[in-house]
């Protein structure tokens, strides 16, 4: 790990030149995989994420089936080479938790009643990581679901907000995350339905409010980009 930079904010700008309320550049490609029913490749700064959706499809093992609706599964996984120090392949406790909260974040928008007894499987592969992989993964997964034609009540948009040298800042990148004082990823169905909220670090209750409002603004911007990507592909918002 590199040493902590002396300052994370210089003259109101962040190490990568961003303003406090500025997202990193985002690139979205829809429908990039052949085998998956829906897919999305997404870059958020240095993060490179591939998401795929399979479904509706048969459930194995059978006893997991639900009689009146589809089950939704979500697997967040990091490629071994996606981080500085090679990661052992396979799930660890962190990825199990992220898979769980991401599933909780995405599931509310899926109209599960359309596919009784079936499964909708969401796979997110982190090809390169630079802080914010879970939020980037949720954004990509949301688009991949639309690409797969899974009926949804809306898109889920996600981003994080951090506290950096005492300031609230949108979408922390790796150094800001490592050396910052707080990190809070949220996911939202625009305009105001929160489906993910995690926080660790230190926020006064006032700081929390400021951060939370900023994060919601970030989600709104991301939502717009998600929409545009789907319109560019389909002419409309992910309708089949």
């Amino acid at each position, binding site marked *: 790990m590199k040493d902590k930079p002396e300052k994370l904010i210089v003259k109101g700008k962040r190490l990568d030149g961003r303003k406090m309320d500025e997202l990193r550049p985002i690139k979205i490609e829809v429908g990039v995989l052949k085998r998956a029913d829906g897919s999305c490749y997404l870059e958020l700064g240095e993060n490179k994420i591939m998401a795929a959706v399979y479904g509706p499809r048969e459930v194995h093992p059978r006893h997991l089936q639900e009689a009146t609706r589809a089950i939704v599964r979500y697997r967040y996984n990091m490629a071994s080479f996606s981080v500085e120090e090679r990661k052992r392949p396979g799930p660890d406790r962190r990825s199990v938790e992220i898979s769980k909260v991401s599933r909780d974040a995405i599931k*509310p928008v899926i109209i599960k009643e359309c596919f009784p007894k079936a499964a909708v499987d969401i796979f997110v592969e982190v090809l390169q990581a630079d802080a914010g992989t879970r939020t980037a993964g949720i954004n990509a997964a949301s688009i991949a679901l639309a690409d797969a034609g899974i009926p949804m009540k809306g898109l889920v948009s996600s981003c994080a907000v951090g506290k950096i040298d005492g300031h609230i800042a949108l979408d922390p990148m790796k150094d800001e995350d490592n050396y910052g004082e707080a990190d809070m990823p949220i996911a939202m169905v625009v305009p105001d339905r929160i489906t993910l909220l995690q926080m660790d670090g*230190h926020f006064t*209750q006032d700081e929390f409010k400021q951060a*939370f409002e900023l994060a919601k603004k970030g989600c709104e911007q991301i939502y717009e980009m998600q929409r545009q990507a789907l319109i560019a592909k389909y002419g409309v918002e992910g309708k089949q």
Partner: protein
Amino acid sequence: MNESIVAEIRKDYMYDLAKRGERVDGRALDQYRDISVETGEISRAEGSARVQIGNTQVLVGVKIQPGEPFPDTPDKGVIITNAELVPLASPTFESGPPREGAIELARVVDRGIRESGALDLTNLCIEEGVKVWMVFIDMHVLDHDGNLIDAAALGAIAALSNAKLPNERYDMGKDGQLPVADLPVAVTVVEMGGKLLLDPGLEEEQITPAKLTIIFNKDGSISGMQKSGTGMLTSEQIYQAIEMASNKAKEIRKKFLERKG
């Protein structure tokens, strides 16, 4: 099928109650169940606490042993937090390696301890780069009647507050008290029919779409949050939940942690 219809009716009933400000067990929406905290029961452990919230029961043991630091933090002690949802505690818990529920529980409690600064890890260095104290926080669930997370988090900080540094056993002088700098308290709120309820019982927890746990430090600041469940919350609900939980956390800390301080 009948079973699921009964469940549906029961759920509707509980939602209706909630809308009227009532709960199945007769509590007010913002009423916590009775809490009890007993410390020091496990003499084999350096610290321990048995927490009961209503019928929910969690036994937390803290073991402290010397070990090697991580290469990138050679001057810091190590915290390892683990939750065991043993099948003795609930018909739905199974044997085997921890599943996502146990992992999430352990990680949320872990972040609360860590981020609150409850343990100053540099205090736990014995010899830089060579030997540090490893603090194992093992949360053993004995009876699961809802809201495990608040019980486990309370048990963890109570067990830490009560733990000794076993210097004698390792020929490093007299035993000391594990220094604890903050007393984070987790309080969980669930949403039901548009209303917010403190401290969900098992049945409430099973039907609620969304749960929010907030961990507060002594000074009222927040060191951790975790939303779970597949429901959605409005900003308004989140702000309200924080307010409800904030007061309760202060009360719990005062009653069960500070009197020992």
